[in-house]
């Protein structure tokens, strides 16, 4: 059984290491799928529906096919079929240039019989709504979760809060849109893909084109963000490969910004009608929720509740509502931000009702000791005692307030990764595995682990990932599973490679293996010292190449987090200005502290957008999105960023993933801070100035 040893003693583990891909990324040399230019490559583009619902009655590709520079046009929907949302794929073209492809799209003729649509959650649930899915009243089956005796719970409650919390549809908005470059060589398909799963994408391409998997190669050297939305070829990938096959030329097909925003996934909305009770001693005794949400036509709407708190009696009910809009996909901590925002707000409301400090009340109901320590650390850092004792009581127009939010994530990784470490006779070291780097820094983490084991520097290690060709599979990068899945196997591969080198050297000079020590770039054999290079050169014609194995003992799940926010609310304009956010996150055993802090910042900033800015807005009349662009869909920009204290809370545990947990507590902390500032609660995200002003007016 392998062990990480004491990370604190390592000169690399848990220290600040610069990203290996840094030099390529700052000079523009890093090639993303979007940047791949193949000889003879054509540009693909998709014609999308501008209507939300209708029956396709005619589709004529010939005007496009006849245009000079257009090499192929294919249908992506059959005549007679139903168009079900704005942005649905109708046809695709491949042309010599991007601009010609755009012209060709416009030249395609299609006709449709319009059908009634619905893009509003409430309307879709009403009797008068058109039936748009195979769900009764457009509502999926209820998913019910029960525990204890709710009725008994209510009788013991001294205080009860009833409230409705709602959250918006958030769009992933990956800066590199979904897309592929597809190239055929006979029956061999090579695809450059902007994906979170090279092996999963290979499998899906192979299935779609009925090819053996080993005839498909998927490459993702760099990729520009996925956040849960990029796990397979999608219609666009299939279209790219089909166009490439038809033309015999490579085809690049990246989604346009509008296509990306409308069709490439989102975090479903949620409306939670909550009733909860607590005793005056501060114990939660009953919790009841009916929650529903929409992502579009798909499922996936949900929330976590009662989340990190223990409640003896509860009942939760969840269901999905369909609307004519692009479907949801996994999005950084699916269902958690929705649940956390409602629970964080609820805990604050209950605490106030029983006259208890919100943090104290949380601690009484949250059994996680790591989070208790995080509450203390964060409270000190933000200055919790500066909080308004009576919410909204500060004088003046601009009022400040402080709030707290909590989160929890699994992220323990799992079996399935194969990794290999090679030591070559020239001293170079390669680490090879089939994972991919979405920007999380796994490439650098792998180098750190191998370097730490072999006494080298991370820059001495060549990390080969994001390619299915070496045949060393790894899972998709989702659920904060990448590092805890990959690290153990890389670690054991490096250990095995080191052992092989030691055995080889021991045999060579005829000593016992114990006398060979590899450390800090050199190798000591008895009284002799060799440089790493010299030691490796003794391999002659050989190469050491060792595979690692899964080791349960090197990883761990369950990452607790707490965040604190300080805000300033302008009661005349309704503007919420963030002053400071403190994020205290259990990161398990940290491999790269620099990248970890980046991850924490990134999660918080995603949470800021969720709390204050982002919202997919659908127009009821036309059934179209009003903000499928980066002007009107607001993601956090430089001006919205407050001081962020990213605290990686060391717990000396094992390796875990933190991509997701860090984005969960932010919105609740901000919402509670807004309440503390103005004394009026906004129960709907995003907290925009109009909502703040309306709430103030109604108070």
């Amino acid at each position, binding site marked *: 059984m392998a062990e990480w040893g004491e990370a604190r003693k390592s000169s690399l583990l848990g220290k600040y290491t610069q*990203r290996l891909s840094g030099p*390529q990324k*700052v000079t523009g040399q890093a*090639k993303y799928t979007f940047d791949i230019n193949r000889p003879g490559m054509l540009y693909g583009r998709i014609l999308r529906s501008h209507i939300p619902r209708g029956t396709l009655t005619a589709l004529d590709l010939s*005007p496009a096919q006849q245009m000079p520079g257009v090499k192929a046009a294919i249908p992506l929907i059959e005549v007679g079929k139903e168009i079900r949302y704005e942005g649905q794929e109708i046809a695709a073209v491949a042309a010599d240039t991007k601009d010609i492809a755009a012209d060709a799209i416009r030249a395609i003729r299609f006709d449709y019989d319009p059908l009634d649509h619905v893009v509003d959650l409430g309307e879709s649930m009403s009797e008068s709504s058109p039936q748009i899915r195979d769900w009764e009243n457009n509502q999926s089956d209820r998913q019910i979760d029960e525990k204890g005796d709710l009725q008994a719970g209510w009788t013991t409650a001294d205080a009860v809060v009833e409230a409705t919390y709602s959250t918006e549809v958030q769009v992933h908005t990956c800066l590199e849109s979904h897309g592929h470059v597809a190239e055929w060589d006979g029956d061999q398909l090579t695809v450059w893909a902007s994906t979170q799963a090279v092996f999963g994408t290979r499998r899906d391409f192979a299935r779609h084109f009925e090819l053996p998997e080993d005839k498909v190669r998927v490459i993702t050297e760099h990729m520009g963000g996925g956040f849960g939305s990029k796990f397979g070829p999608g219609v666009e990938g299939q279209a790219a490969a089909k166009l490439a096959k038809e033309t015999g030329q490579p085809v690049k097909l990246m989604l346009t910004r509008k296509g990306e925003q409308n069709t490439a996934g989102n975090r479903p909305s949620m409306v939670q009608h909550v009733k909860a009770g607590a005793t005056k001693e501060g114990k939660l005794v009953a919790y009841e929720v009916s929650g529903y949400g929409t992502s579009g036509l798909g499922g996936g709407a949900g929330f976590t509740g009662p989340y990190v708190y223990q409640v003896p009696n509860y009942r939760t009910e969840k269901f999905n509502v369909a609307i004519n809009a692009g479907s949801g996909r996994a999005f950084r901590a699916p269902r958690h931000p929705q649940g956390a925002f409602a629970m964080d707000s609820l805990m604050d409301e209950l605490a106030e009702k029983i006259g208890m400090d919100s943090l104290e009340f949380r601690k009484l109901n949250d059994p996680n000791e790591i989070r208790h320590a995080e509450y203390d650390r964060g409270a000190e850092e933000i200055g919790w005692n500066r909080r308004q004792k009576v919410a909204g009581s500060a004088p003046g127009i601009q009022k400040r307030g402080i709030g707290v939010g909590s989160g929890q994530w699994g992220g323990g990784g799992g079996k399935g990764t194969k990794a290999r470490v090679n030591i070559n006779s020239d001293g170079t070291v390669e680490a090879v595995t089939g994972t991919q780097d979405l920007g999380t*820094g796994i490439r650098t983490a792998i180098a750190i682990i191998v370097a730490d084991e072999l006494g080298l520097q991370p820059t001495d290690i060549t990390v080969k990932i994001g390619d299915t060709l070496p045949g060393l599979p790894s899972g998709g990068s989702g659920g904060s599973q990448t590092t805890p899945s990959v690290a153990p196997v890389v670690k054991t591969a490096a250990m095995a490679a080191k052992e092989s080198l030691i055995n080889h050297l021991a045999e060579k000079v005829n000593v016992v293996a114990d006398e060979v020590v590899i450390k800090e770039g050199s190798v000591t054999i008895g009284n002799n010292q060799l440089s790493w290079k010299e030691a490796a050169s003794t391999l002659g014609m050989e190469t050491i190449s060792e595979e690692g194995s899964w080791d349960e003992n090197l990883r761990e799940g369950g990452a607790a987090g707490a965040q604190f926010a300080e805000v300033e609310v302008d009661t005349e304009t309704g503007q919420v200005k963030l002053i400071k956010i403190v994020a205290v996150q259990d990161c398990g055993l940290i491999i790269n502290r620099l*990248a970890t802090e*980046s991850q924490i910042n990134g999660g918080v900033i995603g949470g800021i957008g969720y709390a204050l800015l982002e919202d997919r807005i659908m127009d009821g009349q036309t059934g179209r999105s009003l903000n499928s662009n*980066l*002007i009107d869909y607001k993601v956090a920009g430089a001006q919205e960023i407050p001081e962020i204290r990213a605290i990686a809370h060391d717990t000396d545990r094992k390796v875990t993933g933190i991509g997701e947990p860090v984005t969960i507590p932010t919105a609740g902390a901000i919402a509670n801070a807004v309440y503390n500032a103005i004394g009026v609660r906004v129960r709907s995200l995003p907290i925009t100035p109009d909502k703040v002003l309306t709430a103030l007016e109604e108070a």
Partner: protein
Amino acid sequence: MQGASCVEPIDWVEVWLSNRGDPAHLHLSKDGCRIHIRYLVQEVCPTSRLVIQGGQMAEDTTRSTDQPEDRQKDLHQVNKTGLSRRNFLKGLGTGAVAATVAPATLAEADSHSATTGAEITRATVKLSINQQVYQIEVEPRTTLLTVLRDGIDTGGQRIDLTGAKEVCDRGACGGCTILVDGRSVYSCMMLAIDAEGKEITTVEGLADDNELHPVQEAFIEHDALMCGFCTPGFVVASKAILDQNPNPTREEIQAELSGNICRCGTYPFIFEAVASAAKKMK
């Protein structure tokens, strides 16, 4: 509609579809407006009519500081390449859209040139990019960004400068930021034909031989990048900031970088990187 009978050079255009209410009011920036029109045309549904109307701005509107001479110069430069605004509009590609254009200064858009593929005007431009001169044949609508990323010069050589990214394709994200005569510019909002005679620097041209620019070094040191897709834009914009203001405060850095978006959320470390690069450059 004010300005409907205007015959002077215009400062603004309003574009709307006859079957939809809200017009999009666009100010004619030096390079931007024409591209905006391109987009609106692309998004039109086949049964719509596109109406374009233009006029002059009132003194107090945002762009009123634009010098009239600049505008003239700009038009003149377009003319130098043999393309008039009329021809430009012809090359737009209006698809199935019937266009009504007023006033006369904007000319009528040809309603079928693009769909038939006929008569798309082309011109050869000479561009100086990272101190190297390229001759490239472009359509009038071709953006500078498209030339950098996808352009092929008249010798058949790909330009292949893919550092600048197309993210929003309409001046909203900064992913395509480059330097034109030392100032940061969204290359998706500039037409290639308007870049003639200017010195273009992309992220690939910032490093001196193999020596990284201090901004680039600082970005690596401070981990001011994650997926890195926004990074070239931020690096170039940051360099431009420091060239103008060697001692920016954090507030100034935030304000100056507000034209760039990073979805991974690297901003805090970008601010640190820019501040530390400023120190290094002293």
